């Protein structure tokens, strides 16, 4: 609980530090990425099921919002919820055959799924605008209050992120969360103690897709322009990196991972062409030396540091 209050204070107060600056804009994206990282973490960290196609669900949310509000002039808030339900349903149905697979096969199947979704965005030009993208998506508004500045979008996005975070935290502490972790450790054992592993995996897949879809809708409305390139394989890998760097199975870890990877380019800007190298190296080094991610790695390091201090004091 203390952690959550800390987190809330940071989220509410951060704008005071950065108000008006460009970092606010980056933080809006950090919020969207946090949502996505949490979504993927529910699947990967809790249920132990990999997905290399989550950018696809993110894209479905974004495109449904974009198309329904520009072409069919529907209410954006209605579309966000409808898109989320539709994406969830889609993932639910797809989940049955997909999640039957394990390990690398699952990675490949989700990857293929992501690519197929990407190709559909690219080719259905009449609706999505194809590779040139879809522009003119309206900004969200409540009455006459329009979310048209970074600070307003910041509170909107992070408001939703906090809600999703609470949901995820509750889920992980609940019976379902424990069941998921049982699947993660040993699916057979979980089945033996009476958990319907198959249904549970599919359900969590659907929930994860629903959250991704909401993130996509918010992305579409805050940027007001979308194109398929933002929803490709590379972004799926980036999401995976966020989750791994943050720490598998840690909701706060996802927050740290998303924040770090969203801000990283800001620090690497001077490095020009080297950022892709640093990115790859970071991913590998994290996995080799801090396999628990930041969420577990930082306390571990602190402990070790404390112990070594104590050790030298005794000597």
């Amino acid at each position, binding site marked *: 609980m203390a952690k959550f209050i800390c987190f809330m204070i940071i989220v509410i107060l951060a704008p005071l530090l950065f108000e008006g600056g460009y970092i606010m804009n980056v933080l809006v994206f950090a919020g969207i990425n946090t949502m996505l990282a949490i979504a993927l973490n529910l699947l990967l960290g809790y249920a132990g099921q990999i997905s290399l196609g989550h950018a696809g669900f993110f894209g479905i949310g974004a495109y449904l919002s974009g198309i329904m509000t520009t072409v069919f002039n529907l209410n954006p808030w209605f579309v966000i919820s409808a898109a989320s339900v539709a994406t969830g349903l889609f993932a639910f149905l797809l989940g049955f055959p997909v999640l039957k697979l394990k390990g690398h096969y699952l990675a*490949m199947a989700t990857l293929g799924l992501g690519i*197929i979704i990407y190709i559909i965005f690219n080719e259905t030009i009449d609706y999505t605008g194809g590779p040139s993208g879809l522009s003119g998506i309206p900004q969200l508004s409540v009455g006459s209050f329009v979310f048209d500045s970074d600070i307003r979008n910041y509170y909107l996005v992070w408001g939703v992120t906090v809600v999703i975070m609470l949901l995820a935290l509750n889920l992980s502490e609940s019976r379902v969360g424990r069941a998921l972790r049982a699947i993660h450790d040993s699916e057979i054992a979980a089945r033996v103690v009476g958990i319907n592993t198959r249904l549970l995996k599919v359900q969590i897949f659907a929930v994860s897709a629903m959250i991704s879809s909401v993130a996509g809708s918010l992305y579409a409305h805050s940027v007001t322009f979308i194109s398929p390139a933002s929803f490709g394989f590379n972004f799926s890998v980036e999401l995976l990196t966020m989750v791994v760097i943050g720490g598998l199975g840690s909701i706060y870890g996802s927050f740290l991972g998303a924040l770090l990877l969203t801000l990283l380019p800001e620090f690497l800007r001077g490095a020009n062409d080297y950022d892709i190298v*640093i990115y790859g*190296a970071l991913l590998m080094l994290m996995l*080799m030396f801090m396999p628990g991610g930041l969420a577990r790695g930082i306390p571990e390091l602190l402990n070790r540091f404390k112990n070594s201090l104590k050790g030298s004091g005794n000597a």
Partner: protein
Amino acid sequence: MQFDQLLQFFLSGVATGAIYALIGIGFSIIYNSTGIINFAQGEFVMLGGLLALSFTELLKLPLWAAIPCAIAVSTLVGALFERLAIRPLRRPTPINLVIITIGGSILIRGISMLIWGKDTHALPPFSGEEPVIIGGATVMPQHIWIVGITLLLISINKFYFFHTISGKAMRACAYNRRAAGLVGIDVRRMVLFSFIISSAFGSVAGIIVAPLTMTAYDVGVMLGLKGFCAAIIGGMSSGMATVAGGLLLGILESMGAGLISSGYKDAISFIILLLILFFRPQGLFGKSESERV
């Protein structure tokens, strides 16, 4: 639809499919001895092509000398990758292995971009650019090289796994790592071997396709994915099944582009891949508990 058109689609598909097969075999060799899907496999394809280019253009080596040098260097990279990234991994769960090889592939691609720049480069063909006419269709001499070299490498591969001690040892690792270790096989060395062989295969693929398709630092991603598809269709075998998988994928793609829709052709191959995974995860040709090498 005329016959010569169909023949052309077929031949183009076979030529592309042979490339996929060769890359796919690299995947299955590593998978079979270690259980790892090496997502960096495509990068060795890229390395092969670009290294061969550097050896011919910068060091002015003739093509026949540049090719072995390029293969040697990329094999070295493969060995280093195994020693520095895969072996030290503390928790080698499938997910961690997938992620670390993805990390490795990004790193190799990034470094290659710094070395070779972002431009596309062309390698000279092995033997001229006069098209060869078969029936009403045409292929390039390079296509014949590709099919020939793929077949040759697969035969060598087969011989190695069934008729040499270290090949047999590797198969033993694939069946049961613990048991292999108990009878005195150095399992870790076999893992290293498998990375060496597959990076060599990858770089050969990269070199022989570069004259046709050209090459750049980022060609590895798509070629790697297609090779992976071929391996999965073939049930991760390192023999003819993967070749058949590659050819099937190549022909489907080419027919899809020619007869149905060029925009959706990749979607068609991935949908088929999904269907195979859903209904026949052991591969199109495998028995359900089939041999893996």
